[in-house]
């Protein structure tokens, strides 16, 4: 393992992320008529144990975006600290300009990629969606800094189980109800087939008016 070989030179190996401990599973996101819908369950697995059942894996970012994370939850909390600082500095300018979802995703891409280059990644796959000035944006970035945007994205198992469903059934300008039904279908398949999925999920909606994250339900 590369981490072990570089040990002594770097000082202490305990500073690097070698493997994740408490992880979240897939996040699924789609664009719909008024904005973006994200779905994620509320599970935090400790290896093969489904240890934490009420983990919020989706959070709003600024006025225009929402982030969902899978992977190491402590790294997600670290990312939230970076983003809070980013948004704070953006607000401090107080000049009528604000960071939109595209800008936030690109910032995160830089962060993820730079960490990966230092062999100390933030062990997450992130979904970032938002709407600004009528422009919808939905993108994803992985722990090695690969990023792209699309009409529907997913992380982890979602890529294999949910995206095929979305490719078939997603269409432009879905209504909110259609979108939720589609996401629930994806989450159901994930519950059946993904070992680390739990039966408690949240759906997050972001429109021009703002962010709403639903209460957990199953």
């Amino acid at each position, binding site marked *: 393992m590369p981490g072990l070989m570089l040990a002594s030179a770097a000082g202490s190996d305990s500073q690097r992320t070698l493997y994740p401990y408490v992880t979240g599973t897939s996040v699924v996101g789609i664009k719909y008529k008024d904005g973006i819908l994200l779905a994620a369950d509320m599970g935090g697995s400790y290896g093969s144990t489904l240890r934490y059942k009420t983990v919020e894996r989706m959070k709003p970012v600024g006025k225009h975006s929402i982030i969902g994370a899978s992977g190491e939850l402590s790294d997600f909390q670290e990312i939230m600290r970076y983003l809070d600082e980013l948004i704070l500095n953006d607000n401090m*300018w107080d000049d*009528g300009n604000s960071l939109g979802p*595209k800008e936030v995703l690109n*910032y995160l891409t830089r962060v993820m990629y730079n960490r990966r280059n230092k062999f100390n990644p933030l062990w997450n796959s992130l979904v970032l969606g938002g709407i600004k000035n009528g422009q919808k944006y939905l993108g994803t970035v992985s722990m090695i800094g690969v990023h792209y945007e699309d009409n529907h994205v997913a992380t982890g198992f979602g890529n294999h189980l949910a995206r095929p469903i979305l490719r078939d059934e997603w269409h432009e300008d879905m209504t909110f109800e259609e979108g939720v039904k589609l996401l629930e279908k994806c989450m159901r398949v994930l519950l059946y087939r993904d070992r680390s999925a739990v039966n408690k999920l949240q759906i997050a909606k972001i429109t021009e008016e703002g962010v709403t994250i639903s209460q957990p339900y199953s």
Partner: protein
Amino acid sequence: MFRNQYDTDVTTWSPAGRLFQVEYAMEAVKQGSAAIGLRSKTHVVLACVNKASSELSSHQKKIFKVDDHIGVAIAGLTADGRVLSRYMRNECINYSYTYESPLPVGRLVCTQRSWKRPYGVGLLIGGLDESGAHLYYNCPSGNYFEYQAFAIGSRSQAAKTYLERKFETFVDSSRENLIKDALFALRETLQGEKLTSSNCTIAVLGIGEAFSTLDQETVQRLINEFEVVGEDPPAEAAAAPDQSDGAEPGPAAAAADDDDQETPAADQGAAPMDI
């Protein structure tokens, strides 16, 4: 201003609370050749007088593109101006790289450093961001202000007087009229000297239009337009071509009409000057 015992160092305050070195730096701006900026809701025009030091030399470049959506015109120590332009370009590029999005102009204008001496150059920064078109003036003291229109450099007062008269029309001005106003203002600073495309530079940027410097041909054509018609500013000039008669020989009047028809198409096709 006279020499005094508090003016040696930029870090020394005078008892009256003045930093003389900074004030002297601002004098350097007043000695530079004129630069003018104006903005409407959708466009910003920067114009400057280009004086070559001799007939053999070429003109100093005083207008710089900082990014597709930001341009700067300088007056004062052009070397300092170039240093600052490079710094601003760097800031814009870094921001674009991190956020994939253009740097909002207001965040660019706080650039002054307080190392050895103040920069002896005034910057007229024109730019576009999501809150519209902006024009800022950055002076050696580090202060910056936002303007609808402004002029700096030698004999800029004449231009400012013209701009003060007309600035209320700028907000909704068309691109062409804004450029013409810039040329009129520039002419004021020349105090009788003839305005030609070889002693001025004009640059435009706007919504849907990246920053570009107008080429000599376009500028000369615009100058000719209002010189043929007479001394009237754009508002009257629109009506005048229809009525202009015998004073000019036939071909010139015909040429003016042709120009007016071509103006919209040609301006859109005007190639940016490759410098």
